[in-house]
């Protein structure tokens, strides 16, 4: 039997060289009846071999693989950048633990309303760091991370409503309303000094904003980074201006409407300032109409026909116009 397997392999190699079955079998007259069907089967097996993929198939596969590689690559540095190194984390938590022993949890409670730039802010962030450090369960940790990201967004909203200038970093969804950029409802200013990612930042992308708030209530962006697609980030409050506008604005509105809109007033002011800075008078007018709340009907004159329904349903003033959806 072993012999036959060896002979079969020898015959297959002869077949590879282009010889035909019968001429190969003349060397093995005693085994030719056993070998012939096997060599025929080998020929059949070779006949169904397939050609290389066409350029279109290669291009599609390449795009898929490279996209995946990019996502994996981005996931890594983001996680690293945001995580505090282990040794520092430990040192950090010891300091916080010591603070807690000395001062009790009152300090932590007091710090929970602090904003960037305030004395107790570092205690607030340390406490968050400690909670993350102690969260061993991956799910609990990601819930906490999301909670803290929401906290960052709220801090920024409060800073801009108070017109304070502080360095901030927060994550959110990139949107455009009336051609103005926002991240999760926070108006942002992109200048020529802003570091932007290589890829185009599309509306709806999750991003991290590094920059500072200014007196006009806008975040001046120093660096805008794209997060991997699908990263969960806070959506923020709706931007009021697009209530009377078309589909894109309403889509943002719908997203935002799930979140408590406690900073609406701040946004109206901000958007006004934003509009002024860019000489966009139509924007400004719309904002004024909006911030009046019940002035929807006069607002509709700017945005063309078909808005009468909106005007009626939007009489809540400042609230989300869910009827649009």
């Amino acid at each position: 039997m072993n012999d036959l397997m060896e002979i079969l392999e020898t015959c297959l190699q002869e077949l590879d060289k282009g010889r035909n079955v019968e001429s190969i079998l003349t060397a093995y007259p005693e085994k030719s009846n056993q070998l012939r069907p096997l060599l025929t089967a080998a020929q059949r097996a070779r006949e169904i071999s397939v050609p290389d993929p066409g350029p279109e198939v290669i291009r599609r596969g390449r795009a898929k693989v490279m996209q995946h590689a990019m996502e994996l690559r981005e996931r890594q540095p983001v996680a690293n950048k945001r995580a505090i190194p282990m040794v520092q984390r430990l040192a950090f938590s010891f300091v916080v633990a010591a603070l807690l022993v000395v001062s009790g949890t009152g300090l932590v409670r007091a710090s929970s309303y602090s904003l960037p730039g305030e004395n107790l802010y570092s205690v607030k962030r340390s406490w968050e760091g400690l909670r993350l450090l102690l969260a061993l369960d991956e799910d609990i940790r990601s819930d906490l991370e999301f909670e803290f990201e929401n906290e960052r967004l709220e801090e920024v909203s409060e800073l801009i409503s108070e017109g304070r200038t502080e360095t901030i970093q927060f994550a959110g969804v990139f949107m455009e309303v009336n051609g103005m950029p926002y991240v999760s409802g926070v108006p942002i200013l992109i200048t020529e000094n802003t570091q932007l990612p290589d890829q185009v930042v599309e509306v709806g992308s999750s991003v991290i904003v590094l920059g500072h708030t200014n007196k006009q209530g806008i975040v001046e962006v120093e660096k805008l980074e794209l997060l991997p697609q699908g990263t969960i980030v806070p959506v923020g409050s709706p931007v009021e201006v697009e209530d009377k506008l078309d589909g894109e604005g309403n889509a943002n509105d719908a997203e935002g409407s799930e979140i408590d809109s406690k900073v609406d007033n701040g946004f109206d002011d901000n958007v006004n300032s934003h509009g002024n800075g860019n000489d966009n008078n139509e924007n400004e007018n719309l904002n004024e109409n909006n911030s009046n709340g019940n002035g929807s009907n006069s607002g509709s004159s700017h945005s063309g026909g078909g808005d009468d329904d909106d005007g009626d349903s939007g009489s809540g003033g400042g609230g989300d116009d869910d009827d649009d959806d």
Partner: protein
Amino acid sequence: MLYSAPRSVILSHLPFDKTNVIMTTSDSQSEIKGLQDHDPKVVGEIYDRYFPEIYRYALYRIGDQTAAEDIASDVIVRLLEASKSGHPPRSNLRGWLIGTASHVVTDHLRRKYSRPTESLSDSLADPGPEPASQLDRRETHRAVHSAYARLTSDQQHVLALRFGQGYSIEETAALINKKVNAVKALQFRALASLQRELGEVDDE
């Protein structure tokens, strides 16, 4: 789910230069390092080098171009993920890729047969007028595919490597991490089964 990598193949027992087919360990390792960083250049090179081969392997085994295309890119994505999660192939990248492709194909076929829709050979059929000789050839292909599809996974695997990809017996042995004699035996049984199945197809 990631499939575990086959044990690394000992290259030194091979009696001839295998650099064409089996990368040297150092090549593999520099590529694996680039993979861990998801260096686009390395990923691109690995894709260019292996995608056509994995695609042909998958297409030979399942005879469905769309599925073969998906499987081939899926296998390379699995390699990226394995490298990221710290379980990259330690050597013999091609062996790892082919091994993974074989698992993915087997999974695909299992799912396909658990909810059968069309026969394997039907997916190759392309209705429309064509010359009689071409029609004959297509019929023969369908018959061979149909017979091939009835072989065991191991038998299909060895035939795909030996006759679909055209690897030598030694190359096949290195890729599937078996001894050359074991591959000769497997090949013998696979061809005998194929011949038997072909006979039955002819009888139908």
